[in-house]
């Protein structure tokens, strides 16, 4: 065992925490709010343990040197490495996870089997953090599976509902296809190189490695909902409990995208080609996501399709950055990732509040929210306006950086992409604005009285809403934060 113990400490904390929460629930108390508090403490502790890594990961000189690692290095090795991009993703996951846990302190109060929910949530985050940090394909595969299995179960958590079972099953089947494809790619790569450690494969890839890379692209493509492999997402994100949708839409699919980039670049896929591929695919993602979101009648399905579209924006920025080696475009991609996590997370949480208090599932059910729960209506509007890219919210800053990064490159594909990007952001107004309008439409049928929402739910809403405003008003520090990530990815692609 060599290396920096700080890399593995958060994972140990999360895994141990999962076990501890389960034991607490079994042996001591199964009260929902206590379990939520305990879980939140575990997540905050893990977040705190990531803090020392920040100083160590900024602006590495090369991809392999100087980053904190933990494990055996060598042909048969297995190790974790905390690069700057992984840290950004992990921090977003832990932060969002903490807020979701606090929110669940009330949101899950009417459910049963919370002793399964919180440990599974912790395992989901463990898998995610491990996946983005893993630098050998074996660990990557294991952590990815840990995350996925936890996600399947959580999607079907309300198992008394047929729709939940159906969505969970669909997610499981599609996800397993992805897993098997990844496993196949892993074996192809091992056959040729004799190792699974990514930094040892820096040479020119042979035919088996290329085949393996293609398998990884498809497998991770399924799990990160790249069109046309996205079909499971609207069901899974639309049927899961809102708190879980928040995690899935906010960070899980994006973290898989990051793993995809890391693996493909690590296996010697030229950054230029990967960038081109991402740009082309992203255009389908944004167009299809936005077009289908326009016709949805269920709020959560609408938000799920919007995730597909927003994922397209992120892919587009990352793609331009990789193709033209533009750090600012990659930074914009990560910035969009952070902003999207806050905005989409908030949107799902707000939707969950409406569902919790008056069983709103369709868009029309949200009428009169402003009169009943002004705070929720405000927060929901902030998140939707942010997603629509209205200044001065976080989404606009993301759009600005993406555009300014994109316009530094020149090429037919970039210009075409930018036009489609802009048309899409116009198209997206067609569903975000009416949704905001619905919140503020007064309900005609019944007398609306104000509902006091629980502080467990109000706190995450306020924090995320403030964060969206803060990121939008003062995007500088957030952009700086992603500088290391873009430097790392560019170094990896070289």
């Amino acid at each position: 065992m060599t290396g920096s113990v700080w890399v593995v400490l958060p994972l140990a904390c999360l895994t141990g925490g999962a076990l501890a929460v389960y034991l607490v629930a079994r042996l001591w108390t199964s009260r929902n709010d206590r379990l939520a508090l305990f879980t939140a403490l575990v997540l905050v502790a893990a977040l705190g343990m990531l803090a020392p890594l920040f100083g160590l990961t900024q602006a590495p000189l090369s991809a392999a040197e100087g980053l904190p690692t933990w494990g055996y290095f060598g042909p048969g090795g297995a190790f974790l490495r905390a690069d700057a991009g992984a840290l950004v993703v992990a921090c977003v996951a832990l932060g969002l996870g903490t807020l979701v846990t606090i929110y669940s302190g009330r949101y899950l109060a009417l459910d049963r089997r919370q002793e399964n929910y919180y440990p599974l949530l912790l395992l989901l985050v463990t898998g995610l953090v491990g996946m983005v940090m893993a630098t050998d394909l074996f660990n990557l595969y294991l952590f990815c599976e840990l995350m996925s299995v936890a996600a399947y179960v959580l999607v079907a958590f309300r198992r008394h509902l047929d729709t939940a079972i159906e969505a969970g099953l669909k997610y499981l089947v599609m996800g397993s296809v992805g897993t098997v494809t990844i496993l196949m790619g892993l074996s192809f790569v091992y056959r040729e190189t004799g190792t699974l450690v990514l930094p040892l494969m820096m040479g020119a890839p042979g035919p088996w490695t290329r085949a393996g890379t293609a398998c990884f692209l498809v497998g991770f493509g399924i799990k990160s909902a790249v069109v046309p492999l996205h079909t499971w997402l609207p069901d899974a994100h639309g049927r899961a409990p809102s708190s879980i949708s928040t995690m899935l839409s906010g960070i899980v699919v994006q973290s898989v995208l990051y793993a995809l980039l890391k693996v493909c670049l690590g296996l010697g896929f030229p950054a230029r080609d990967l960038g081109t591929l991402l740009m082309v695919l992203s255009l389908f993602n944004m167009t299809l996501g936005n077009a289908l979101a326009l016709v949805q009648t269920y709020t959560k399905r609408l938000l799920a399709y919007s995730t597909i579209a927003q994922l397209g924006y992120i892919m587009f920025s990352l793609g331009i950055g990789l193709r033209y080696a533009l750090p600012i475009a990659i930074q914009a991609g990560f910035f969009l990732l952070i902003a999207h996590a806050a905005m989409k997370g908030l949107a799902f949480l707000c939707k969950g509040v409406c569902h919790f208090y008056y069983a709103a599932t369709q868009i029309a059910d949200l009428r009169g929210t402003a009169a009943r729960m002004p705070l929720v209506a405000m927060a929901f509007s902030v998140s939707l306006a942010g997603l629509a890219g209205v200044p001065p919210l976080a989404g606009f800053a993301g759009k600005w950086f993406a555009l300014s990064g994109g316009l530094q490159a020149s090429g037919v594909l970039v210009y075409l992409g930018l036009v489609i990007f802009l048309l899409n952001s116009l198209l997206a107004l067609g569903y975000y604005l009416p949704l905001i309008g619905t919140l503020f439409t007064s309900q005609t049928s019944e007398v609306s009285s104000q509902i006091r929402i629980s502080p467990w739910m109000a706190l995450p809403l306020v924090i995320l809403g403030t964060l969206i405003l803060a990121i939008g008003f003062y995007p500088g520090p957030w952009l700086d934060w992603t500088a290391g990530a873009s430097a790392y990815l560019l170094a990896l692609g070289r």
Partner: protein
Amino acid sequence: MDIETMWLVTILGAPLAAALLLSLLGGRGARMAGWMAGLAAALSLAGTFALLPALQRGEDPTLGFRWIPAAGIRLTLHIDWLTFPFLITEAAVTLLAVVYTWGYHRTDERTSFFYALLLLFAVGMSGTTLADDMFLFYIFWELMLVASCALIAVWGEGEQRGAVALKYFIFTHLGSLMVLVGLIVLYDATGSDSFSALRAGVTLAPGLVMTVTTLFIVGFCVKMAIFPLHLWLPDAHTVAPMPVTIMLAAAMLSMGTYGVLRFPLSIFSPAQMTSFAVPMMVAGIVSEIYGALMALAEQDIKRIIAYSSVSQMGYILFGLGTLTFDGIAGATLHVIYHAIVKALLFMCVGLVVRATGRRRITELGGLGSAMPVVALCTAAGALAIAGSPPFCIFDSEWMIFAGGFHTAHIGLSILTLFGSLLTVAYALWFVGRIFFGARPQGLTVGRLPWAMVVPTILLAALALIEGLFPAPVFDWVAHELTLILGGVW
């Protein structure tokens, strides 16, 4: 912080603070909301005037600090001679619209939010003109849209308000996106988002100059509602509550003009702009004639005045398109004078609707004896918009036409001149049908609140005074041209 900076902050800060306070107070602040909004708007106007001496001394008060160092983005407020005429127009229109609201708006528990959004709308407009950075410019530019859209969606008249607000948002956002792309191209070219850097000069590939200029002009023409990009305007102006309509028509439309002056015209040399002269002039004429014809064809008195805006913006675009001293000065003067007259006409429409409860022109008539003051004000407004001396618009139209005759395109200039005949037609027809002739059966006239009448009279007087003594305002406007055109003319 010297006194100029303080006033600079007050112009934006007073309405912003009042808006925040009003939204926090909510229903509890409903009774005093009007007074607070009026005070804030008055402070904003006072701040604008207080900066005039500094401008005349040749200073340009600036307040700025670093915002996003990694991307070279700053946050700077700045006032110069190009800003000033627009700023004063917005501040004055806002104050009058707020006063008009005192009489127009019935107090309920949402009143505070109405005033708060009006003030945010005003902040958006004055922020757009004061901003010296693209990032900030665009934030205020969209704030203006968001606030006005919310006002239409919530307080609009009729069941269609949600759809109209959506149409308004999407249409104008399309223009905003074009502007955004243009801004970002300039930002990438200069490496800084500051307008000062742009004024110092920017070198772009000739093809890129064409693209950027086209994007800016088309984008800003959406805001100016130039045919065929005007489709949002008649609906939005008709559905919006009257104070919002006044601010939309009198102040927000002028933001498009400001954009054209600030971006393509100040940044690129007249030589680079020449190829745009004829398209702008032609689009202006088409808009002028189309708007006037539609105004003649409309039945709803609010829509008539709304289409008249399309027509008037046509004059302005024509003036800008001439690229001459007279034409551009005339266009800027026309922005100010059009604001006065259009606010006046909409206020009169509001008074007629309030007094009679009717909006179709065929159901109105013979009101002259029942409401002589309103009749007089409307007549003044109609004569002014028809461009008859001694009202103010005569001066600006004179300048615009003079600019047209300085160019090589005399035919186009003659066409505009004759196009203005249509303006006379709808303006006089409008007054004639409402205030003269026989009064239809069952048309009763209610009492009018003073808060609605006083601003109307004030504006009618202003339209006359400005027409008789245009020198001070002309002096302000003339200063701007040295900024735009340098020493070329």
